[in-house]
């Protein structure tokens, strides 16, 4: 019974998302993964006037058999630098995906809420402590890092030359790109401290 409701609802929601205006504006999108209605792929355009602008972020969406009585399980596949999203796993800290879920919410409202979360981070309720600390202590560096990640992992506008140069420097020392990016992002783009941390 419950599984029937889940699949039936997702089918109906699909039509809703596809029809809605947000799709026309390329802001949100949902696709099926395979034939089942339990695994979906979402896409969110980075909100304007944020460091995520110009990027397209992919989401992994899993629909539990008990949907809509329980929320969908959503995680970022595209790496993102945001206080409420893990920079390592893509796990999201958002109340409606946990205890504030209501059965009347839909994939469309979830995606729009995530877009709103991208525009208004809540560093006091962090999922990623490192990112939240940077956000609170040095907003300019946070924005620069978030923009760099948008460019690198979400197809955003070309990256900051200074950041790219520092990554290349670390790569010249035999560090892989990802490790270099994480270390520099964590240590506020301080090349010396990042090098020290990597090789210590």
């Amino acid at each position, binding site marked *: 019974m419950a*599984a029937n409701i889940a699949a*039936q609802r997702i089918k109906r929601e699909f039509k809703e998302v596809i029809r809605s205006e947000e799709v026309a504006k390329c802001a949100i999108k949902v696709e099926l993964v395979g034939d089942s209605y339990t695994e979906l792929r979402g896409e969110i355009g980075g909100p304007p006037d944020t460091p995520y602008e110009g990027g397209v972020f992919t989401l992994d969406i899993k629909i539990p058999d008990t949907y809509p*009585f329980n929320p969908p399980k959503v995680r970022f596949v595209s790496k993102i630098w945001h206080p409420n999203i893990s920079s390592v796993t893509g796990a999201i800290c958002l109340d409606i995906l946990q205890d504030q879920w*209501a*059965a009347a919410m839909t994939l469309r409202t979830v995606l729009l809420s995530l877009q709103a979360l991208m525009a208004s981070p809540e560093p006091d309720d962090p999922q990623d402590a490192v990112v939240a600390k940077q956000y609170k202590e040095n907003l300019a560096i946070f924005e620069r890092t978030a923009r760099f990640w948008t460019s690198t992992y979400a197809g955003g506008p070309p990256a900051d030359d200074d950041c790219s140069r520092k990554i290349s420097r670390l790569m010249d020392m035999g560090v892989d790109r990802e490790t270099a990016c994480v270390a520099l992002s964590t240590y506020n783009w301080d090349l010396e401290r990042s090098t020290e941390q990597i090789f210590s």
Partner: protein
Amino acid sequence: MGNCLKRSSSDDISLLRGSDGNSEVQTDPPPPYPEPVGPVYYPSPNISRSVNQLTEEEQIKIAKRMGLIQHLPTGTYDGCKKNRECVICMVEFIVGDNVRYLPCMHIYHVHCIDDWLMRSFTCPSCMEPVDAALLTSYETS
């Protein structure tokens, strides 16, 4: 009516194993409880327990909740244009469907809303708590 007492389906049980089949998401620790037996209940929205794992306090809470749900009026859908579909299953109401009315006047299929209310005693549309007044009057009577 007692349909809120219905047996759990295998789907409910699969929820308890939540992390099956999405190993790459693996952020949750393994479920702390052994395999459930019998019906599954939800003492809180995110806590599901099989009937033999409920504490006495939870059993009382669930029993009260069932009683309260039965105090909410039901009826049959009369074709009212204001409420066209049940937002839980997103299926349009058909004249004669069994519906339940919440104090905020949102209506749902009885089987849909009862399943929700057993998890969260709020209206899924407006998030209004389903009548604190009802709760008080029930507890004091």
